[in-house]
């Protein structure tokens, strides 16, 4: 149960990070799983091969992922919405390819394990406490950003770039900055993900994961920090609850998928802004 709660925290950080760019700034990312991988691999490699204290790998993952995010997004910002989304998808493929072919692995497996934890973090409870703390900090940072004057500018970038430009503000600078912040938070999520699972491999960071994040923020609500918390919380709870219903596993899987899909379709038809979102792409 604590393991599950820790995982939910990781997904909350990732959802908040994605919502900053997708919901608040209107930059449709379909590649955040790639950045999650950058964070996870950075933390794992630094700890396993370079002996860096795990706690220090969290900020390290943030910095490295932010840098990768900024460098990779700059060439894409000239693209229109759809093409931008498609390009971030391409980015996810490229990063996956790098993890698969260049990423270090433990002999005989596809992935990487062996993170050494500092004293005090050996128990699941302690790791949950750390993750919860970091999640609270990440949510706090995101909250500060979107409620500050900066949040207003981000929403202007999303709604009408040319109007913002006419008011003397360059949308590009803000897009790059928020993409960097989103990258940093995603990197933190990656570092926590690696230690929560204790094993990472490239298949964790595919398009599937990127889309899952979009589902979480879509359901919770775009342009809403609370929605980014509610989305993963509800959907993971929904998924996991099936394990306790006593339905035979051969039935539970398909039923769950079906209900999940129908709920998503219903939500998009009747409540496109998500459960507590403040934005939908029609406007």
């Amino acid at each position: 149960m604590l393991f599950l709660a820790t995982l939910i925290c990781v997904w909350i950080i990732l959802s908040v990070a994605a919502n900053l760019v997708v919901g608040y700034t209107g930059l449709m990312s379909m590649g955040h799983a790639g950045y999650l991988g950058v964070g996870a691999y950075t933390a794992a490699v630094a700890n396993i091969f370079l002996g860096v204290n795990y706690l220090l790998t969290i900020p390290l993952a943030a910095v490295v992922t932010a840098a990768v995010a900024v460098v990779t997004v700059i060439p894409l910002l000239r693209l229109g919405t759809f093409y931008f989304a498609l390009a971030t998808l391409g980015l996810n493929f490229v990063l996956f390819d790098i993890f698969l072919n260049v990423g270090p692995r433990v002999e005989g497996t596809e992935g990487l394990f062996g993170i050494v934890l500092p004293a005090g973090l050996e128990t699941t409870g302690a790791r949950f406490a750390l993750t919860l703390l970091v999640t609270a900090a990440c949510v706090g940072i995101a909250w500060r950003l979107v409620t500050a004057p900066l949040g207003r500018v981000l929403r202007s970038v999303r709604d009408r770039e040319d109007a913002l430009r006419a008011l003397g503000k360059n949308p590009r600078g803000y897009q790059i900055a928020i993409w960097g912040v989103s990258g940093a938070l995603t990197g933190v999520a990656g570092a926590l993900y690696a230690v929560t699972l204790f094993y990472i491999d490239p298949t964790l960071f595919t398009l599937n994961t990127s889309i899952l994040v979009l589902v979480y923020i879509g359901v919770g609500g775009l342009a809403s920090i609370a929605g980014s918390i509610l989305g993963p919380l509800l959907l993971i709870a929904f998924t996991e609850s099936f394990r306790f219903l006593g339905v035979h596993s051969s039935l539970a899987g398909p039923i769950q998928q079906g209900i999940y899909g129908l709920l998503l379709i219903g939500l998009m038809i009747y409540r496109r802004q998500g459960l507590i979102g403040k934005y939908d792409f029609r406007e």
Partner: protein
Amino acid sequence: MTSASSGLRVERLAKSFGGVHVFEDLSIEVPPARVTACIGPNGAGKTTLINIICGVLRADRGQVLLDGRPLDGIQPHETVARGIGRTFQDVRILPLLTALENVLVAIPSQRGERLRDLFLPWRGVGAEEQRNRERALALLEAVGLAPVAARPAGELPFGQQKLLALVRLVATGARTLLLDEPATGIEAELHPRIVTLIRRLVRDEGKAVLVVEHNMDVVREVADHVAVLHGTVIASGPADTVLKDERVIREYLGRLYA
């Protein structure tokens, strides 16, 4: 106050799209403390002129000078820093932001918009925002928009949106204002508010204003100087003189505005 080099000057501008000449050899002056109106038929290039001044379009020939210095290669987001601001025919307010937020977002160089200042308590982000809010509200109040300050701008009637766009432009602090049809398409009851605001900006703050407008009643009330555009400037001078000019009225205004 007005010297030969102060304010905005457009010199011998030419622009064509494909084979279509919009204008040729266009020169116009927009000095401080004066409302210069630019009138002319559709397609005369009035909006094109604003777009060239603001760096949205490039001229084929000629140049734009601000206080005697050319504005070559300027990008749209850099014009405000140089003191030039514009409005759009189709207003382009930010529909999901409130009216107040629309004005707030126009205030230049706010610390609360910079990542590096946001998390440093001693940078006074909150106090600055408080001051900006009061200022923005005062600006809205001056044009009677205070009661709708908290409403999403997209829900306001078109006329109020145009007024809001004007207030937003004032909030940028630009000294030279380019107004693209500020009164066209809005209820006549709002015309006096727009005229009063523009006149006050010119009288009290010495702004240089270029107005492109179809509504001749508004032009008569607001303009000090009128330039008639039709391929080039075909008549120019004090508003009373130009608007009474038989030739202008017969050939250009008559058939358009009679």
